[in-house]
């Protein structure tokens, strides 16, 4: 065995020891091998247990999606681009498909739109449950985390039945969806699941959101105000927690959302607790939306556009032009900008992940002055998702 002193000596020789930066401050690598950051690194300059300066260091998940998409046919890019957002892979699928639909000038059949809306909402619910789990684990409320993970499995099973895969569904395609709804049994199961999770929300409140510990740990931490949030391009629940009533589903309605009735939560505090509570309320609203959709029932008709061009799939061409489509994901505003030059492959695809706005500059500024124990809480309350920064 190597002794401790030998290790220290070896580290010194290789220049790997912690270097004191200025007087009383030191450098701390936070992540990527850390349970709170997961594939994201923050370099902190610490004074005691206070953060003096933070630098976000993304790029651990960079695979060059935007360039890879330029080498693959229009249609198969779905199998690639959904990997940008792992907790809710239906969102990149949906935005890319919507942008291509716009370029093609397709009117997507109503049934396909209905299925897309249901899938997006299911993805939102499962993503919020995943986030609740993360928050529970980071705050030490493990009970809530275990519940959320277990309830999410019910949605995973439904996804599996509908799309044929657990996580990477590859389901929404340009012009509709890949498969029809399997049966009425599936709709009944979805209804049961929605009711089941709705029942359990009260327990989440009891354990996590109305817990004294949660409030003490999250109140007044990582505060941002309205002007700051707008300047920094923050979107989604983080923006709503600062007092801006904004939601892409309301402002730029897509799919079935204009016909649905739902409320958006707005709080003025802008701290970590407000962000968490906004998300909590949205989970409830998403379940409500799913209920409404199920009550409506799937419209009859085709689930895919009937277009002869779709037959020669690998050489399927899209007319020249550009389109931008965006949806409201759980992290924020997820957008895709697609440029075509009339060929069988996209000329340029850019995916705008919401985390690029609130995961870099906002995080760096919110962390200054925070205690080291609050760093995971701030990260979690922002809902940072590294793959959509790195792409």
């Amino acid at each position, binding site marked *: 065995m190597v002794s401790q002193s030998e290790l220290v000596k070896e580290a010194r020789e*290789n*220049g*790997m020891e912690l*270097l004191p*930066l*200025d007087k009383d401050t030191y*450098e701390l690598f936070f992540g*990527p*091998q*850390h*349970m709170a950051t*997961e*594939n994201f690194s923050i*370099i902190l*300059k610490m004074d005691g247990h206070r953060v003096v*300066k933070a*630098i976000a*260091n993304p*790029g*651990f*998940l*960079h*695979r*060059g999606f935007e360039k*890879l998409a330029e*080498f693959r046919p229009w249609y198969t890019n779905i*199998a*690639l681009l959904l*990997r940008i957002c*792992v*907790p809710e892979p239906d969102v990149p699928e949906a935005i890319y498909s919507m942008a291509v639909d716009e370029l093609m000038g397709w009117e997507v059949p109503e049934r396909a739109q209905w299925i897309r809306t249901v899938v997006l909402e299911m993805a939102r619910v499962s993503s919020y449950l*995943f986030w609740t*789990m*993360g928050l529970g684990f980071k705050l030490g409320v493990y009970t809530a*985390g*275990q*519940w959320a*993970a*277990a309830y*999410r*499995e019910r949605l*995973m099973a439904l996804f599996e039945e509908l799309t044929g895969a*657990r*996580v*990477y569904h590859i389901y929404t395609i340009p012009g509709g969806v890949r498969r029809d709804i399997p049966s009425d049994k599936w709709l009944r199961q979805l209804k049961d699941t929605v009711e089941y999770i709705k029942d359990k929300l009260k327990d989440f409140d009891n354990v996590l959101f109305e817990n004294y510990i949660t409030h003490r740990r999250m109140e007044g931490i990582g505060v941002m105000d309205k002007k700051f949030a707008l300047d920094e391009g923050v979107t989604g629940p983080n923006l709503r927690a600062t007092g801006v009533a904004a939601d892409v589903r309301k402002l730029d309605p897509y799919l079935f959302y204009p016909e649905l009735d739902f409320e958006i939560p707005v709080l003025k505090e802008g701290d970590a607790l407000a962000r968490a509570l906004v998300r909590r309320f949205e989970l409830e609203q998403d379940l409500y939306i799913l209920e409404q959709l199920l009550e409506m029932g799937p419209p009859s008709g085709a689930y895919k556009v009937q277009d002869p061009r779709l037959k020669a799939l690998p050489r399927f061409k899209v007319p020249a032009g550009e389109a931008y489509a965006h949806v409201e994901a759980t992290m924020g505003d997820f957008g895709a900008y697609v440029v075509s030059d009339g060929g069988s492959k996209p000329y340029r695809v850019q995916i705008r992940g919401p985390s690029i706005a609130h995961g870099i500059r906002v995080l760096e500024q919110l962390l200054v002055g925070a205690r080291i124990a609050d760093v995971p809480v701030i990260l979690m309350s922002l809902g940072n998702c590294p*793959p959509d920064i790195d792409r």
Partner: protein
Amino acid sequence: MVDWRLFEPLFNYARKKSLWIVAFCTGCGGIEMPPLMTSRYDLERFGMMPNPAPRMADLFLITGYVTPKTLKRIIITYELQPDPKYVLAHGSCPLNGGIYWDSYNAIKHLDRYIPVDVAIAGCMPRPEAVMDGIKKIMEMIENGTADGWKRYKENYEWYKKNQDELFGEGWREKEARRWIPWLKKK
């Protein structure tokens, strides 16, 4: 002086029953880790749990594709783990690049850089498949055939050559000192 090798089967049995995992999800497969660890699939039944510190962990799960930037951290973390240590690779990507076969920023053959014991197919593998892989690695530990860490020691020169070829010489030192000028800046 006791010949500890006599007790090796006993040790192997103990190692098999208390595999701790490094909590380092390197790719998209990381999203299947929480369901595995929590109440639905409950890996703790097998005496496994995620551990934040590599110093206390035996098993390294490479959950999906690996980018060079992450590989640097994986190598450092892997070297921090005490012997014996085991590596399990999820999915297609560590094996042959997966869907990122033409990406400049995804590793194609992981076994060139660190030794891997077990491979699982799938994109991404279901929790059941991961459990199957873990069962396999447990069998291998009991037979004493999970010898990746021995290979790493024996062929260290070869592994180091491949790593240096990819990252350039002196990458460890460079990585440690990279951010100092930026932190010192006002």
